């Protein structure tokens, strides 16, 4: 591992006084960054240690939203969300990711910024435009079973790996950012990530030396909810396909649908086209097909991941059908469904 220096911050205002180097990186839990540093994929010259950042380690409930500090661990957020019916989708998503050991270290801010698990991004002997701009994309013509079908480009087909971010997108959360100048701004998570295009190394709209300070989750009704993650083993694996969904029906009519897709997009995928088809429609198998058809209209497959459109369709329909059946019998229900 390359040498680096360390700076520490304890309070948000300390960010404004930082003397940072060109290749400085913030380190929160470090579960992804340290791994990448060992592999020489990340080679920061300086780390800014957020472990003692006292201001952003808690969750607070307000009249119309929850505020989750950037340093709240995935475990703490999953436990909190489990007891809040309108957040139980988020709890399911968090608990389906990684392991207890990793969730105890991983943070809310860090989870949003974790890097892809594309094999070729990790393997420095392979071409990767995300790791080394202009070097090419080995995934396009090689084994690409875990890769994206939505939002891809000729330069990158890597998926975003976060389960939490898929739920945050579904729940219409917003990230709060603080710049070194002290300036603050809020950005919907749905607009936080960039599609790769010809610049796959640019993954989000963070500008130089901005740091995520918190995530704001609006208080909304999401009805019956479910985070379904399809993967190669039943625990501790990244999603091949995941569907985060909430459904409110009145009679047979879809009053509200909450959706996010994981494992299929180059960013946590907000299925705006599918939602548009579903809102206000009479619930039926046909309308589900029309909705997923609309979302998959621009999907592109790359060989080993040719199964993903069908897997996404079937998972989406299975989840929505389960939620619909549950809503028909419990139309005022708010919370997640569990398999057992």
């Amino acid at each position, binding site marked *: *591992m390359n*040498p*680096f*220096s*360390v700076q520490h911050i304890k309070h948000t205002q300390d960010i404004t006084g930082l003397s940072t180097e060109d290749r400085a990186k913030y*380190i929160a*839990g*470090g*579960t992804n960054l*340290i*791994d990448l540093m*060992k592999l020489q994929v990340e080679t920061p010259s300086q*780390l800014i*240690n957020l*472990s*003692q950042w006292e201001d952003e380690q808690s969750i607070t409930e307000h009249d119309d939203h929850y505020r989750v500090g950037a340093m709240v661990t995935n*475990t703490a957020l*999953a*436990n909190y969300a*489990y007891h809040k019916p309108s957040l139980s989708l988020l*709890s*399911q998503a968090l*608990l*389906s990711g*990684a*392991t*207890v*050991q*990793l969730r*105890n*270290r991983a943070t809310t801010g860090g989870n949003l910024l974790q890097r892809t698990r594309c094999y070729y991004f990790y393997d420095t002997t392979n071409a990767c435009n995300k790791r080394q701009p202009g070097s090419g994309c080995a995934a396009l013509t090689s084994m690409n079973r875990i890769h994206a079908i939505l939002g891809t480009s000729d330069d990158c087909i890597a998926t975003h790996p976060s389960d939490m971010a898929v739920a945050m997108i579904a729940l219409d959360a917003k990230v709060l950012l603080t710049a070194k100048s002290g300036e603050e701004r809020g950005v919907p998570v749905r607009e936080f990530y960039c599609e790769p295009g010809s610049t796959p190394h640019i993954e989000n709209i963070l500008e130089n030396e901005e740091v995520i300070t918190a995530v704001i989750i609006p208080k909304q009704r999401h009805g019956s909810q479910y985070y379904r993650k399809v993967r190669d083993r*039943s*625990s*501790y694996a990244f999603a091949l396909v995941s569907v985060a969904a909430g459904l409110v029906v009145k009679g047979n009519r879809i009053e509200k649908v909450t959706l996010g897709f994981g494992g299929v997009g180059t960013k946590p995928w907000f299925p705006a086209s599918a939602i548009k088809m579903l809102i206000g429609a009479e619930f039926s198998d046909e309308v589900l097909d029309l909705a997923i058809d609309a979302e998959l209209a621009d999907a592109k497959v790359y060989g080993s991941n040719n199964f993903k459109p069908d897997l996404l369709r079937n998972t989406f329909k299975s989840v929505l059908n389960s939620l619909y059946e549950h809503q028909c019998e419990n139309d005022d229900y708010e919370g997640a469904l*569990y*398999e*057992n």
Partner: protein
Amino acid sequence: MSTLFVNEEAYPLPEDPRTTLLDFLHQHLSMFGAKKGCDHGQCGACTVLVDGERINACLVFTFQLEGKSVTTIEGIAKNDELHPLQKAFVERDAFQCGYCTSGQICSSVALLGERAAKNPSAVTCGPDYSSKEDIRERMSGNLCRCGAYPNIVDAIQDVIALEPQ
């Protein structure tokens, strides 16, 4: 001086910030109970407790743990009395080569605390936290290449059964 505590003893943080907790235990304290399996957070052989919570010692720099209290497998037994989980692992033959065992035991010690705190898991729905399915999910961060999983789950269930319900 910046310190961290390991099994209730205070130690100064190492000078080189690249030192992970696992390397610190091995190279500075000669504590080899926590094992280096993958060194990438995938196998769980390096699992230790930090302020009672289990983490992968290979994926944390020591400077991130200033003032924290680390418990390794060497600190699980008290006054020469094995922890009930250590006894259960022996009684249930919950290992073969033993390389993953210190991580498995540290992880399952933390599991008991998480269960007492009623922390949910991906399969938890309702008050029963002791099913084999739930234990397997909670222990999925600890791999065993010998495949001793059934006996590991049995050992954990034995200790859960000893606790006041």
